[in-house]
């Protein structure tokens, strides 16, 4: 058996309990495929995702982080994802400003009925991260180590 040297990205997906996690479930029960590189972390609401979680994921070796939540307007807690949307916009803009490759982070709204969207989004995102390669910059912003 030959050794497989292919780059296996580590991808963290924060999925909200009410929509996206159920969407992932639907993708599974519909036998839709998405790469096993995606590790799902279930959160009560996309608003629960503190920007620090995303930075922490990168620091712990993630190559890409995607956050999924209910479509704006459909939040189980009425308004959580509106706040999350502002926060993530600012965080992504800051990461871009710091010179982190564009596209390592993403937000996608996936409802419980969108198993297909979940699977295509994950496939797309994994492809994107594969093309970007390993994340070195975010873990290395201060070179003293």
């Amino acid at each position, binding site marked *: 058996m030959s050794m497989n040297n292919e780059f296996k990205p580590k991808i963290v997906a924060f999925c909200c309990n009410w929509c996206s996690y159920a969407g992932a479930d639907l993708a599974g029960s519909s036998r839709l495929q998405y790469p096993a590189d995606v590790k799902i972390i279930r959160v009560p609401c996309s608003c629960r995702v503190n*920007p620090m979680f995303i930075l922490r994921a990168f620091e712990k070796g993630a190559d890409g982080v995607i956050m999924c939540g209910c479509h704006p307007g459909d939040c189980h807690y009425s308004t959580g994802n509106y706040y999350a949307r502002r926060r993530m916009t*600012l965080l992504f*803009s800051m990461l871009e400003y710091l010179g*982190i490759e564009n596209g390592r982070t993403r937000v996608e709204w996936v409802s419980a009925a969108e198993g297909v969207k979940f699977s295509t989004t994950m496939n797309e995102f994994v492809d994107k991260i594969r093309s970007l390669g390993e994340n070195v910059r975010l873990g290395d912003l*201060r070179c003293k180590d």
Partner: protein
Amino acid sequence: MQRLIDRAKELLASGEVARVLGWKKGDLGFNPEPSYFETAESLDNDFVYDGFCGANLSKYMIEASKKDGKTLVFLKPCDTYSFNQLIKEHRVDREKAYIIGVGCKGKLDIEAIKAMGVKGILEVSGADINSDCETLTVKTLYGDKEVSYNDAMLERCHVCKGKEHQICDEVMLDSRDTKDAERFAEIEKIEAMSPMEKFEFFKKELSKCIRCNACRNVCPACSCRKCVFDSNKFDEATKANVDSFEEKMFHIIRAFHVAGRCTDCGECSRVCPQGIPLHLFNRKFIKDIDTFYGEFQAGEDSETKGPLTAFTFDDVEPSIVTERG
């Protein structure tokens, strides 16, 4: 300056205020420090107000609000934004403060003078608030040197927010608007760089950080009782820099924590012993908030909701960051 002392003594004597929060002479002629004064003698002996009194006294009002009686505090126009923001966050008590809005003609940065190649500085004259504030005479070990007042100003004074006090009980002394640069010019310059250039720029700047926490301690927006950067294992003042995560991400996290609340007072950059331009982080968030959610100046009043505690139904999607190229 004498007028300020006289007025402070008057208020102390009448019992209107129990103490005065101002600046006292430092060990050198150009490093005054924030201080409380409780007697007329101490005001006479130590009180100082000149071009080097850059320190924003708003944050000290958090402690002063817990003391008995009113505190007389001197706030420069830009400091009043921080004070308003602290009222909004219920960190200071307006009733416990007697605010004298003190005039400001731009504050000086001794590091900027040193950066002009002036060595062995003994004394700087011409920094007095009553002077015309055009040239400074720097007395050094190697003779006198003249430098332009404007060139020696702090970075924040070049993007002055104006000479209006946002909140105060009375105004004393004259101010001048020292704005001579675009507030977001530096940010735009960095935004125009390639990702690799940006990364190298920030890596170079952040690698200078010694995690002294001066930026956090001086920041009026960083007023949480318990800070995420304090170690939970030991005394609360212990830095949690055993954790490599906080080492690396400290500045991003700190900037995010104050996003939407930062008044751009520039204290972080002023106090950084390593000269890291920390305002570049805060100002980037301010710029983004302005572009995405409409112009917002924290501390303009003590009522409106901050941009991160509000939303609209048609806010931009985070994908805008990737789409704009």
